[in-house]
């Protein structure tokens, strides 16, 4: 290491950008993604129940889902202490991932809660 330090520093600077993109701890990344999916799925289910009890129909429910996911994203950003790049490799992980899967759970529980509270 000590021998290389003279020539290594210039190499380090030139390849620094590539290194930051490529090397990160994949295990911790997986764990973080699991946490995000957990949060989103749980909040989709709860949001579906809330939308159903409130009696939203049609487009209003989907608007409610959009607002809820935005709220969740804000919560996740707060949870990561406003430093996304310490915990995730891109913003899409926090803002977009798990959106469609959550939508399915949302619609399921939305119709379920609506049926229980308003139809039967």
């Amino acid at each position: 290491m000590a021998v290389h330090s003279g020539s290594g520093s210039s190499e380090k600077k030139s390849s620094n950008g590539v290194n930051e993109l490529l090397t990160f701890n994949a295990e911790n990344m997986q764990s973080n993604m699991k946490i995000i999916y957990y949060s989103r799925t749980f909040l989709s289910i709860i949001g579906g129940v809330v939308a159903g009890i409130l009696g939203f129909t049609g487009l209003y429910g989907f608007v409610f889902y959009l607002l809820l996911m935005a709220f969740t994203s804000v919560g996740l950003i707060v949870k990561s202490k406003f430093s996304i790049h310490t915990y995730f490799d891109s913003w899409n992980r926090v803002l977009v991932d798990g959106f469609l899967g959550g939508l399915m759970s949302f619609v399921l529980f939305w119709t379920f809660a609506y049926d229980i509270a308003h139809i039967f």
Partner: protein
Amino acid sequence: MGLGFAIGFVGVLILFHAAYSTIQYRALLKITEEEFSGSPLSVVFELSLGLLLCTWAALTVPGKLLCIHPDSEENRIVSLPANLDFMIFNHRGKIFPVEMNEKLRH
């Protein structure tokens, strides 16, 4: 962990109570023969409270986020594994420069 779980449980219970109140409200409307125009204020309040508690639970129960930077303080190896004889250092990881000097200076 246990606290977050309990808070989520309370939130779900509040949601159930709100659903029950809505069912009762619908029954009342059926008796007085009025149309449903929106949930009563108490139900809306209960729902927002339950949603807030469940949000808290959803954000705390899954666990802590872990740092993904390979050279952060949390990810440093502080103890050597038991199978040192089987470890190979002559692999492709060699080409990544290790920031050894920066670490030792602190």
